[in-house]
Every structure is written in structure tokens, then in C-alpha cells.
């Protein structure tokens, strides 16, 4: 089975398993010598707490737009033949796929690089939320990639005076044009409102950094019990 080149497939699936074969076949075509894929699967524990259930929700029309935009960004950076992006919503039982990325290219390096970029961007800017339900409470998860994009920070950021704030551009993930002139999401500091001061910058740098040190690259939590 093959699909005409250049057609990207973007799907938000509600309350049903992701059909991985369908997405792989979508990007399969005779001129591509490589297909790279990434599956995000749900885990059964976080910080030693047993996860009973994970629930996903999305701002669906915007999520579709963002997924398409991410496909365009990837195509502008690498020689990609075809892309498929899918995210599942609703309750996702532990061990099942919540997100799937597939990219094809003539040579593997483009598909491999694009695959990493695609999942990183999904975690940074597609409006989808996950709630982890434990035996004694529940938490809305927070992706560190979102804060990196929003505040233009990375774990290497040293100062909060604006002098050293390498964002995704410096890290090689930049695609520009997101939100404001800095390519960041809205509501950055200096937005003309005293509620949005430097303190938030420092606070989130610290949170992201500490998360990295603990090896939790993608799981920031805010207690919500």
C-alpha cells in the first residue's frame, strides 16, 4: 500500500486505539528508502505513585491546525516524502499508544531527524492535556517543552535579565512565527502587564532545570488534588 507523496495525515482520535499500521502505510511509498516512527505509550507509574488511568483532552480545531503547521515546519527543514501524526484522546489504558509519529524520506537521516522534531514540537505547542489519575488524587501533567517554547528558555539558560535566553532556535528546534516576534508562545514577560514579570521567567527556568536533573524530561506536575 502506498500514498501519493506530499500528503500529510493528521488525526485526533477519540476513545479508540491508534491504528499504527495505517499511519506507517500512509508514509510508505516507492521513492522512500526510510520510515522513522515514534510511539508515545502510557506509563503505569509516576514518582513511585501507581497510575490508575490517563485521560487526554484537546482544543481539537487548534490542535489540528498546530499539527499541520508542525508538518510544514518539518518539511521546510528536511527532505521529507510523507508525514503522519496522530494523537489519541479520552481514557488511554496503561501501556497503549497515546501519540504516534511517522515520517518517510529517501535516506534515513531526514526521516530520523524529522521524527524527533515532530514529537518535540507536538509536546511543545499542540493544545492537548493529560490528567494522571492515582489512587489518592489526580494531576494535570505539564510538558517541559511547553515552557521552553513559551519562555524561550532552555536548561542552559543562565540569566533572567534577557541576556542569555536561548530558545528553540538555538537548540535547533526553532520554526519562528509562533505567537510573537520571538517565535514564542504568547504571554511572555514584558507583555505590558505587571502580572507577567521576570519572576515567572526565573521560576520556570528553575522548575525545568530541576526536572532535567531528575531525569524527568517531560513530566512536570502541579498538584491538583
Amino acid at each position, binding site marked *: 500500500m502506498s500514498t501519493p507523496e506530499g500528503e500529510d495525515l493528521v488525526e485526533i482520535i477519540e476513545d479508540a486505539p491508534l491504528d499504527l499500521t495505517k499511519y506507517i502505510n500512509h508514509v510508505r511509498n516507492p521513492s522512500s528508502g526510510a520510515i522513522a516512527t515514534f510511539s508515545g505509550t502510557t506509563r503505569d507509574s509516576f514518582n513511585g505513585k501507581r497510575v490508575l488511568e490517563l485521560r487526554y483532552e484537546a*482544543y481539537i480545531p*487548534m490542535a489540528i491546525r498546530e499539527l499541520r503547521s508542525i508538518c510544514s515546519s518539518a518539511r521546510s527543514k528536511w527532505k521529507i516524502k510523507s508525514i503522519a501524526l496522530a494523537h489519541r484522546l479520552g481514557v488511554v489504558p496503561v501501556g497503549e499508544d*497515546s501519540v504516534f509519529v511517522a515520517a518517510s524520506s529517501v535516506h534515513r537521516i531526514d526521516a530520523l531527524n524529522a521524527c524527533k522534531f515532530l514529537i518535540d514540537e507536538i509536546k511543545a505547542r*499542540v493544545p492537548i*492535556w*493529560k490528567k494522571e489519575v492515582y489512587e489518592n488524587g489526580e494531576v494535570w501533567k505539564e510538558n517541559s517543552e511547553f*515552557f521552553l517554547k513559551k519562555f524561550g528558555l532552555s536548561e542552559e539558560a543562565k540569566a533572567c535579565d534577557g541576556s542569555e535566553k536561548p530558545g528553540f532556535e538555538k537548540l535547533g528546534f526553532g520554526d519562528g512565527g509562533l505567537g510573537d516576534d520571538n517565535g514564542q508562545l504568547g504571554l511572555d514577560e514584558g507583555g505590558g*502587564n505587571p*502580572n507577567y514579570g521576570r519572576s515567572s521567567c526565573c521560576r520556570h527556568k528553575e522548575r525545568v532545570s530541576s526536572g532535567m536533573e531528575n531525569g524527568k524530561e517531560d513530566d512536570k506536575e502541579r498538584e491538583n488534588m
Partner: protein
Amino acid sequence: MEDITMTTDKETQEREIKDEKGKLKSLPSIEIKVLFFARARDLTGFTNTVVSVKPGCTTLDCVAELFSKFPSLREIKDSMALALNKEYAPGNTILNNGDELAIIPPISGG
């Protein structure tokens, strides 16, 4: 969850401005549909609402209005982003009547 419409006094819905001849005329307020997702929905108790703001107001002006209506929403003021008509928008974006403003708490897709 249920929809609510926040109404304010007529005096605050309209502001009086002077036209070229110096006569007072009223400028009607504009209505912004606001969407709350995930933690924002838990904090406010609503999936969406409608806010009336003055013409020329920005996204952050609207957020300030939301903070006064839903003080608990301030808990995510430093971490949330805004989307206007399904696109991320900076805080100084001017609003138009009928715009859809989404409060985007930290996302956690993947």
C-alpha cells in the same frame, strides 16, 4: 459544566467618547468568547464564557477581566498561554468583536 454569560452594568459596557464636533456618543462593548481547558476549566468551573470588553482592548486586558471574575484562575497566570481564534497570540493583540480567546494551561500532550 454550563455556559454562562457575564454581564456588567450598562455603564461599564459602554464608554462615552467625543466625536469630531465634540458631542458625546457611546461606543458599544465587544463580546469575546473565552474557552477554558484542563486546569483552567477546573479552576473556573466552566468550559467557556463570554466577556464584554471595550473596543481596542487587548488579550491581556481580557485576561485581567477574567482574573477579576475568576480569582482562582490567577493560579496559572505565570504558566498559561493564550490562543486567539485558534492561534497562539501575544498579550498585546487587539481584540475584535466575536473573537475566540482560549486560555491554554501548560500542555501535556504526547
